[in-house]
């Protein structure tokens, strides 16, 4: 399962190199941000002059789901010293979360188990990002692959989030508003506007009487 990050990290590195990232730039972003989906989106938005605020805001919105995951994990790590818990959150990715939650069904999470699962993924992610950037630099134009490659990857991830017709309504609303915003709003605001439109539809369509376990609908995506 540690190998799952290798192709993704290398892919991200090659795409980043296509936007002028040096291996050290790629290493820095994977080291400090460490969140796959938002890193792919950021590379897509990466064009001088950099829309710094929009990049930060988009990363925050895309990663808001980690708020839920951290909240859920916090119930299982009460045996870990309080001062250490914030550090553990730094390596909380979708994959690490999913595995830790599964383990937590059988009892409290030990520090050793959580770190054994979550910690190795981080160096794998940032080192293979840098290797991907080296490859991207030496092969020059990977932009041809990057353009639709990113779309194909995101389509696959969206399919992983599919939970029935309501998901269809969410992505339909997102696509509709994003297309309008892309036509009429300058810059890259269509990402946030479309994303928020889909979220609004999800909230509107939510039916309260649905009975579900506390965790059973949390899903997995990219790191």
């Amino acid at each position, binding site marked *: 399962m540690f190998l799952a990050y290798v192709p993704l990290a290398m892919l991200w590195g090659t795409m980043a190199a296509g936007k002028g990232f040096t291996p050290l730039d790629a290493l820095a972003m994977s080291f400090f941000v*460490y969140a796959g989906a938002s890193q792919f989106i950021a590379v897509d938005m990466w064009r001088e002059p950099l829309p710094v605020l929009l990049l930060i805001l988009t990363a925050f919105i895309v990663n808001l789901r980690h708020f839920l995951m951290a909240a859920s994990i916090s119930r299982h790590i009460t045996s870990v010293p309080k001062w250490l818990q914030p550090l553990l959150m730094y390596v*909380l990715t979708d994959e690490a979360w999913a595995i830790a939650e599964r383990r937590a069904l059988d009892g409290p999470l030990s520090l050793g188990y959580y770190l054994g699962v979550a910690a190795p993924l981080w160096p794998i992610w940032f080192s293979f990002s840098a290797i991907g950037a080296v490859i991207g630099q030496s092969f020059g134009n990977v932009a041809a692959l990057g353009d639709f490659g990113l779309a194909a990857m995101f389509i696959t991830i969206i399919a992983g989030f599919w939970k029935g017709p309501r998901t269809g309504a969410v992505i339909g609303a997102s696509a509709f508003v994003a297309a309008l915003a892309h036509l009429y709003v300058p810059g890259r605001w269509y990402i946030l506007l479309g994303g928020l439109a889909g979220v609004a539809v999800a909230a509107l369509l939510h039916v309260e009487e649905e009975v579900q376990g506390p965790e059973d609908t949390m899903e997995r995506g990219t790191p």
Partner: protein
Amino acid sequence: MSELLHWPWLIPILGMGAATYATRLSGLLLMRGVVVKGRAKAALDALPPSVLMAVITPTVLMTGRAESIAAVLTAIAAILRLPLLATMAIGIGSVWVLKALGV
């Protein structure tokens, strides 16, 4: 390209890192023991697919017919649960083939 590191790029990179860590840390600090459910949870759950769809909308819906058809083929492959690299190969490959066919 003689630079090893674009120093000014560290500003958005560190900002994105802080924003991401804030999402992870606030869940721990603000929500100890609280279970998010109902409408708020439905909205948060919808965030990733919704934002991802918005990102790809210009590419898959507003570029050309080849890209739109390839997107449908990719979605079918994804729904059939093919591995990620296979669905990406299908997507990229079908854009090339469709363009070569003059679509």
